[in-house]
């Protein structure tokens, strides 16, 4: 790497480099100098401290607790999968006829192929009919942005699902069933990923909650202490899902329970549990 910049010129660029405000060509020239100049490398690190100071002096903006624990769990799940170098499960390739293959290819074409096809068709249309180029480009820009948004949403959903799969299928996951004797037979199941301290609770056939009330999930410890694991509202069909992060040692949990509580939740259960699930003895 040749240093075409020189020390004095490099010094002048360091502050803007710390702020990531150099053009790509300026950055390349500076990088070439930095590779040979420990003084400038040290000076740049110090100036980056100044840049970091800006973030440290801004009023703190905390993530919402639910979003925070979900993001943490997702990152941990991704890290576990990354460390384990997990290969995604592949579906067996079905035997297909050429016609079926063509049909399958059409159905499974990635977004960019559809975009490319759309661009080709639109471009051909423009040539043939002399369509307004401005309107055409606008349409393409909108289509591209829509595809970007769809792609981002799908990626986020995929990561969420991978995270949940990791939480539900880890080696230390315990399952606690919770039943009821009422006529409508509410039913719930709790997946406890002990190594990740993640709780995934799913429930079905829950009766609708009366106004001003909410369901609250409890972890009942062997010493009779009851810890709130969160509140939830069932869907109109009576199902619900709740995820939480809470560390509990393996032998201290006795049961889970669901009660109806005033809106906002209670510090301790105030009604008879609708659902109770005891830990199964190992």
């Amino acid at each position, binding site marked *: 790497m040749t240093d075409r910049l020189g020390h004095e010129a490099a010094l002048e660029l360091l502050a803007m480099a710390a702020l990531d405000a*150099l053009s790509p060509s300026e950055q390349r020239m500076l990088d070439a100098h930095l590779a040979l100049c420990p003084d400038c490398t040290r000076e740049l690190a110090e*100036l980056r401290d100044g840049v970091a100071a*800006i*973030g440290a002096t801004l009023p703190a903006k905390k993530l919402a607790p639910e979003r925070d624990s979900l*993001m943490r769990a997702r*990152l941990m799940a*991704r890290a576990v999968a990354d460390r384990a170098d997990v290969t995604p499960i592949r579906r067996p390739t079905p035997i297909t006829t050429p016609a079926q293959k063509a049909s399958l290819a059409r159905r499974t074409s990635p977004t960019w192929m559809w975009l490319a096809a759309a661009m080709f068709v639109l471009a051909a249309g423009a040539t043939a009919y002399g369509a307004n180029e401005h309107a055409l480009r606008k349409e393409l820009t909108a289509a591209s*942005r829509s595809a970007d948004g769809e792609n981002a949403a799908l990626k986020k959903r995929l990561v969420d699902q991978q995270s949940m799969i990791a939480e539900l299928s880890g080696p230390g996951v315990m399952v606690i069933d919770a039943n009821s004797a009422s006529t409508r037979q509410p039913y719930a199941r709790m997946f406890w990923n002990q190594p990740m301290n993640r709780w995934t609770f799913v429930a079905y056939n829950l009766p609708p909650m009366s106004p001003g009330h909410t369901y609250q999930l409890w972890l009942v410890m062997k010493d009779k202490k009851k810890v709130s694991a969160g509140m939830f509202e069932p869907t109109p069909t009576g199902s619900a899902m709740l995820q939480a992060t809470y560390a509990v040692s393996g032998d201290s949990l006795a049961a889970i329970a669901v009660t109806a509580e005033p809106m906002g939740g209670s510090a301790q259960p105030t009604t008879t549990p609708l659902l109770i699930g005891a830990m199964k003895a190992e």
Partner: protein
Amino acid sequence: MATGDESALGALYDRFATTIHTIAFYLLGQADEAEDAVEETFWQAWREASRYDASRGAVSTWLSTIARSRALDRQRAWRRRAEDPLDTTGATSADAIDRSDAMAPAPDPQRNAEAAERARDISAALAKLPAEQREVIVLAYFGGLSQSEIASRTSLPLGTVKTRARLALEKLRAPLAQHREGVQ
């Protein structure tokens, strides 16, 4: 973390998530975008942990640099769209800050109020800097502008822009060192 210990990632997240979210939020001004930038930051830190060199800076500085880069990538993508003559919908947080500074009307009153609040927070955080240095830092740090773009926007010679940036960073550096010692 460089050895693949995911609990180290958890510890890093617990310690710095709020700092990283703060940076992303002030750069992007949108909760969803800021959250995505936070996740990208910690994921990049996990994947590139072996490249971290403690002798070249604190972990907080390393993470802050990654966070700002990820947020600026998003911000610059918005700006590219905004600069597209066919696109009149894009806007950057820097534009929002400019709008609030200039007291110009914005299309969405709530977003305008939020941008104005962010601008006030930023001004307060940089209050120790003279106005001319603050302007350069706001345009570079929060606006993601290059030094040439800043010179063009402020009608200042490029050399003046560089000098003001350096003086500002030198002023900001000293309290950070104290802050970091306090945290560590």
